[in-house]
C-alpha cells in the first residue's frame, strides 16, 4: 500500500525511497503528536468547563423520591418510598418495583436515570386504579390497630371510639386491611366524575370526513 501511495504522487526518477519513508515517519509522528496535543488541550478545556459551568441539582435520591407516588405502601419490599429511592440510587433495587407509580412512574425513573424502561415486576403487585379505604362503621370495634398501621395517619379515631378514614389523605396503600380483626375496611375505587374530566390525547387527523382512518401516515413520533 505504501508503494501504491508513492506511485500516485509525482516523483523524480531518482527518488530515494528510504529518505521518503523517513520523511513519512516524521510526518506521521508529527501528526500523532499534534492530535495528542490537541486532544489533551480540548480535554483539559472540557474538564475546566465542566467545573466552571457546573449546575447544582438535587441529589439523585431526592429526584427519585420526587417521582415516587409517596404511597408508603411497602409493595416494593422497602419500608417506605424514601428507602426505596435510596435503594434505586445505590442500584440495589430495580426501577420497576412500584405498583402505585405504575408504568408512568417507571418511565419517569428510566428517563431520569438514563436506563431502559421495563414492565412492572409482577412480584411486587399490579397496577390498580386509585382506591381509598373506607371503614364500615357498623362493624368497627375501635381497636386502633388500623390507626397504628396507616403510614400517613389518615385514620381518625381513638381506643373504643369510632374510626374513620380521611378520604383526602388516604393514599390507597392497603396497609390497614390486614391488621383489622373484624375485616371492616374496604378499598373503594375513586371513579372520576364529569368535573374531573381531562382532555383526551388527540387522534391523528385523517383525510376526508371518515372517522375510520383509511390511511394514517404513521410519522413515527406519535
Amino acid at each position: 500500500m505504501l508503494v501504491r501511495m508513492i506511485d500516485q504522487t509525482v516523483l523524480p526518477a531518482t527518488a530515494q525511497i528510504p529518505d521518503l519513508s523517513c520523511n513519512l515517519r516524521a510526518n506521521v509522528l508529527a501528526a500523532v503528536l499534534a492530535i495528542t496535543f490537541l486532544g489533551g488541550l480540548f480535554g483539559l478545556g472540557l474538564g475546566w468547563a465542566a467545573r466552571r459551568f457546573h449546575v447544582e441539582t438535587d441529589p439523585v435520591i431526592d429526584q427519585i423520591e420526587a417521582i415516587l407516588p409517596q404511597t408508603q405502601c411497602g409493595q416494593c419490599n422497602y419500608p417506605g418510598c424514601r428507602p426505596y429511592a435510596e435503594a434505586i440510587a445505590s442500584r440495589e433495587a430495580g426501577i420497576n418495583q412500584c405498583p402505585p407509580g405504575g408504568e408512568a412512574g417507571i418511565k419517569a425513573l428510566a428517563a431520569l436515570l438514563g436506563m431502559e424502561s421495563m414492565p412492572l415486576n409482577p412480584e411486587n403487585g399490579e397496577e390498580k386504579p386509585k382506591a381509598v379505604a373506607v371503614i364500615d362503621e357498623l362493624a368497627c370495634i375501635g381497636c386502633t390497630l388500623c390507626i397504628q398501621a396507616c403510614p400517613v395517619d389518615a385514620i381518625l379515631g381513638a381506643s373504643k371510639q369510632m374510626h374513620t378514614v380521611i378520604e383526602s389523605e388516604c393514599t390507597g396503600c392497603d396497609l390497614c386491611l390486614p391488621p383489622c380483626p373484624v375485616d371492616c375496611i374496604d378499598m373503594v375505587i375513586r371513579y372520576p366524575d364529569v368535573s374531573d374530566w381531562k382532555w383526551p390525547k388527540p387522534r391523528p387527523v385523517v383525510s376526508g370526513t371518515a372517522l375510520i382512518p383509511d390511511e394514517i401516515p404513521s410519522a413515527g413520533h406519535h
Partner: protein
Amino acid sequence: MHIDHAEQARTAGEQLHHFHGGLRLRHNKKNSCETPLENAPLPSLFYVPLLQQYGKEAEVTVATGQKVLKGDAIGCFGHLGSGCVHAPSSGVVKALVRRPISHPSGSDGWCVVIEPDGLDQWKELEPLTDWIKADPALLRQKIRDSGIVGLGGAVFPTAYKADDASSRGIHTLILNGSECEPYISCDEMLMREQPDSIVLGARILQRAVGATRTVIAIEDQMGAVNHALKQAVENVGDKSIKIVKVTTIYPEGGEKQLIQVLTGLEVPAGGRPADLGLLCQNVATASAVAQAVVEGKPLVERIVTVTGNGIRKPRNLVARVGTPISDLVDQCGGYTNDVARLVLGGPMMGYSLNSDANPVIKAANCILALTELDIRQSQAEMPCIRCGECARVCPAVLLPQQLDWLIRNQQWDDAADCGLTDCIECGCCDMVCPSHIPLTSWFCFGKSELRSLAIERKQAETAKHRYEARDARLLRIKQERRQRMDEKKRAIKDKAEKQKKLAEAISRSRARQDRNE
C-alpha cells in the same frame, strides 16, 4: 414598574395597539343577522343541567313533584358560594336524571327535568330599584344570587370575579362586544336590539366594582351597533362610558388580547386583569346584570346564534337554559341534508356535541351545524415541517411546534417552561399548519395533564409530609419512653444506693456500739 402600568391602564381605549399574530377570518355572520331576535318557544320538557359553570355540579334544592315558578332556585353551590341555577319557566319538577349535559366530554351529568305549565309565571321578583345608592357589596350579592356567569363562553361566576376585582381596586370596566369568532352573532344582535340594557348593566357593574369609567369595545365593521350603542349612551347621558372600535382580527375578543389592544399592556402571566385595575365582562353579562338588579330576574335565558351551512334558516334566538337544542334547530327550519357536525360555540373554539338532545346551557353562545364539505380534510396529518407559521400567528407569542414536540414526548416540565399554561386555545396555529396537525387538541390535552400532574404532586407532597411527621412522632414517643425507663432505673439505683449507705451507716453505728460495750 407598577405605577407606570396603572397609569397606562387608565388610558384604556384612547389609543389602539396591536397584539402579536392573529388571523383575519371570514365572518359568515350575515345570514344569522338578517332576521331580528326571536323568542324560542317553550319546549315540552326542560332539562336543566346542574353543571353550568366550571367547577363542581350544583346541589339540587328542589324535589321531584315540586311546583316551581320561573326564576326559582333549583340548584346551589356549597363552598364556592357563587352562582345558582334557576328554573327557566314555571311548571313541575318531573325528575332528576343523568343525561347529556352539553359537556365537552360528551358524558352525562345530573339534570333537573321540569315540565312547563305554559303559564311562564315569574316568581316574586325582588329588584334593587335604588341600585344607584346601594352598597356595592349588596349589588354583587344580587349578581351572585341571580346565577350570573360570564356569557362570552368562559362561564366564570361574575360575582366571584367582581368580588376579587373590587378587593384589588378597579378603575376601568371593559365591556367586550368584539365578537371575533366567525359565525357567532349573538352579541351583535344584543347590541343592536337591546343597547339600553347593556349601558344600564355597565353603570351597575361600574358601581358594583368601584370603577370610574367604562369602555365598550366593538368590532370596526359593526356599523349599526355603533350607532345603537352611541344612542343608548346619549340617552343616559353618562359621560364615563366610551365606545371604542377595534380592528377585526381573530382572537381580538380574547380578554388578554383585548386589554393589550386597548391599553398596550400585557396581563402578567398567572395574573388577572384586576392586577392592572381592569375588569373585563361580556356585553351579554352586563345585560344580564341589568336585568337581575333592576328587574330582579335571575339568569334563565340567553341569546343563542343557530347558524352554519347545515341549518336551513340561520338566526338568533332567545333561548331558555335547559331547552333541547333540537327544538332550537326545528325553529330554524331544521337541518340541511348534508349536515355532519354539531358544535356548541364557534368554529375555532367550540366543542362538538354527540347529539342534539343536549340542552342549552349558560355557555351556549352559538349552535353551529357544519356540513361534510365544511369539515372535509384535504390532507391527512403529516409530520411537522417546522415552517414556523404557527409561531407567527400565535397571540400568546408561544412556539406551538416546540410545545407539540414536548407534549408528544411527555416532557411536562419543559412544556410548562415553554409557556403551555399561557395557551389560550384560540386555534390560530391549527388554521395555518400545512401539515394539518391538531395542535390545539394537543395543547388542551397537555394543559389538563399538567393540571392533574400538579394535583398529584401536591397530594404526594402532603402524603410525604404526613409520613415524615408520623415517623417523627413515633420516634419521639420511643425516645420519651426510653427516657422514662432511664429515669426509673436511675431512681431505683438511687434508692438502692441510699439503702446501701443506710445499711453501712447502721452497721458502722452498730459496730461502734459493740466497741463501746
